[in-house]
């Protein structure tokens, strides 16, 4: 893990709502694993705290993130441009690959909204031997990114692209039509959606690993601000930033 000031390579809209920001970092491009995040100091004085972003892509020494503008931090970030620098700290958290083993045969990726962020990099690094099916859900088509993903099925709340409904509806529909051998779910998105998917996974007896979201002050285990309640076990809480962000959904109270 390192803190570094890195040059921005590009900032561009990849849909009407989603921005991809690419910077150059030899260290991070080598060290980052899929599902990890980096913690960005968005402005020098404002906002105060860093903002966590999933690693979206790594190409050569270029690392990128994607985001949509929702508040103070992303507003400032959206104004960055080539030639500016940003202060990044990472890579943080555990990664999806540590939940890959021999006990499943189909990887079901499920992304809600900007929760799609970790999946292109995960797809790139995923063992080629395992089949991937990717379910994307979003409010509308401006929140859908297909690039870098495999076997993509899309659901939008407004029906502007793909299936008209929630991503879980789509999954259920799809699962009723296909037979996936030994599926394991890898999920990222809004908590409510992850909870729903985790419930379905449990129902069909599949494992489900979700990258959790929560407000973070430090992202590296210093503040203890990012606790998630566990379903029994030795500790009542774990830290999302350090002991996660990815958890077996059966182990946590979503």
């Amino acid at each position, binding site marked *: 893990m390192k803190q570094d000031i890195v040059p921005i390579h590009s900032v561009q809209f990849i849909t009407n709502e989603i921005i991809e920001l690419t910077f150059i970092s030899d260290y991070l491009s080598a060290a980052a694993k899929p599902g990890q995040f980096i913690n960005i*100091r968005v402005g020098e004085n404002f906002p105060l705290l860093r903002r966590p972003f999933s690693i979206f892509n790594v190409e050569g020494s270029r690392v990128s993130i994607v985001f949509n503008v929702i508040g103070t931090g992303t507003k400032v970030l959206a104004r960055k441009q080539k030639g500016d620098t940003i202060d990044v700290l990472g890579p943080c958290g555990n990664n999806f690959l540590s939940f890959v083993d021999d006990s499943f045969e189909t990887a079901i990726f499920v992304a809600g909204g900007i929760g799609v962020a970790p999946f292109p990099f995960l797809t790139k690094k995923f063992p080629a031997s395992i089949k991937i099916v990717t379910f994307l859900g979003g409010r509308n088509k401006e929140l859908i990114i297909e690039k870098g993903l495999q076997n993509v099925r899309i659901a939008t709340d407004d029906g502007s692209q793909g299936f008209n409904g929630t991503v879980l509806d789509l999954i259920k529909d799809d699962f009723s039509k296909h037979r996936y051998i030994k599926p394991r779910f890898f999920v990222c998105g809004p908590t409510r959606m992850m909870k729903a998917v985790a419930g379905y996974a449990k129902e069909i007896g599949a494992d489900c690993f979700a990258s959790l979201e929560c407000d973070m*002050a430090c992202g590296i285990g210093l503040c203890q*601000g990012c606790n998630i309640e566990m379903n029994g076990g030795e500790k009542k809480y774990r830290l999302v930033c350090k002991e996660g962000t990815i958890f077996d959904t059966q182990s946590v109270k979503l």
Partner: protein
Amino acid sequence: MIESFRLRDLEFKNRILVASGTFGYGNDVPDLVDIAKLGGVVTKSLSMKARDGNPSPRIAETASGMLNSIGLANIGVHKFIAEKLPALKNHETKIIANIAASSVGEYCAVMEILDSQEGVHGFEINVSCPNVKEGGLSFGTDVKLVSLITKELRHRTQKPLIVKLTPNVTHISEFARACEAEGADAVSVINTVIGMAVNINKRTPKIATTTGGLSGPAIKPIALAKVYETVNAVKIPVIGIGGIVSWEDAVEFFIVGASMVQIGTANFINPATGVTVAEGVKKYCGNNGLDDVGKLVRTLQTNKTISIVDSWL
């Protein structure tokens, strides 16, 4: 350039410490911070038993600050000694154990366990804890209890004893005087300021416990004023804490009269803030012809012609 500072028999290599609860037990930042460049590390508050802490959400960002209500989640004093201290004491710095408790007896018991530990160089007492006997009112707002805690702990250690005061009182100087009278070696000023924030969509508090502790640059002016009040009331050293993110901020505290400073929230943004602050303070002193950081302490020039009675806000 003399950077060191002595408290009782303990020599800190410089006057910059990292604050309790903002640096874990020193084991999360090995790649990020050269801990040997810090004057000292104050541990997360330790209680007798491990504490799970509060439900989430525990933190919320505010304008130039943050609220927290971690609930003093900690692994307990025994696990600290078994699992964290061995690595922590390998660093070339001083370790100050911060103690939290819900009764006077617990403060004493935790200290007795820690006092015999060689790697523990001194103590900071967090009195911003709910007194279970009094239905949860904070010890730190009752001057008699702060006196009593200081007195009881003073008997139990020869190591430096620092009492960390809460700003949430009318006159912090009364508390500092009480600590001085009972033999504290220093007081730390300030702990977090009580605050809250509301999620207007859900109409719920942004942190689970409704109110929490405000920290960060927003409170720096408050912390400086509390340090100023305190240094004018006691002769023992005052350790300034609150909103320090840069060496310039630390210099403000030294000028007002702090003998040491602690870095809190800034560690969440730049874990190496303490190191850059130490370097910056040293350079400032050099540039200003001071050969000892101590010569900066309490050099504030105030306007003596303004009487208190005149100084209406």
